[in-house]
């Protein structure tokens, strides 16, 4: 999936990928897509939950075995 910005969360465990995502998303413009790359399985459930709470759009996941990529679209400031 095409993304406007990428966030490296390899070797980070919950809740750091979420904390970093919340920080990073501020740098994006509304409508842009953020790719979060990590290896903590928890992110598969945590990112949709974070999107549900914040209102940003969860676009999906690409699990490449060891490297999990999740995509979030910024929907508001």
């Amino acid at each position: 999936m095409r993304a406007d910005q990428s966030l490296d969360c390899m070797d980070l465990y919950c809740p750091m990928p979420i904390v970093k995502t919340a920080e990073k998303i501020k740098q994006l413009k509304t409508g842009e897509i953020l790719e979060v790359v990590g290896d903590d399985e928890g992110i598969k459930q945590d990112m949709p939950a974070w999107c549900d709470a914040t209102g940003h759009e969860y676009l999906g996941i690409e699990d490449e075995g060891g490297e999990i990529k999740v995509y979030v679209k910024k929907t508001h400031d």
Partner: protein
Amino acid sequence: MAEKEKLTIAVLSGDLERALAAFMLAVTGASMGMQVSMFFTFWGLNIVKKNEGGVKSKGLMRKMLNMINRGGSERLKLSRFNMFGLGTWMMKRLMKDTNMPSVSEYITMARDMGVEIIACTTTCGVMGLPAKQDAFRSEITSMAGAAYFLNSARKSEVTLFI
């Protein structure tokens, strides 16, 4: 978004794993756009007590308590498997290996994210601490009592007692 959702956490325990859980939830809540308040009471005061020592309290009993119960985020122990410090040391080692922030780092992070950090005045007295902000880390935003906690909890979507 409209008015922020609120998360209030009372931290009574001074156990390492409970302190970590409390801060993990606090920073996650802040990341989810929630307004977070943490209220430290009883043993929980040890988490936010100054690490450097030099905290002076009045009266013999308080002085003794203050000396035995040194506190500070770097002296917290696991509630189980402490094994005279070995278990705690191992867990801290594993935390470092997995890039997990320490309690100290979590306190700073939480404050940077706008988490309100409150120390309970009443329990300072029985824990041998002076009910003054300078007994605590600089991240403490205020000293307050039960009414402040309850009023915060009353307005919160989520309230946790750890």
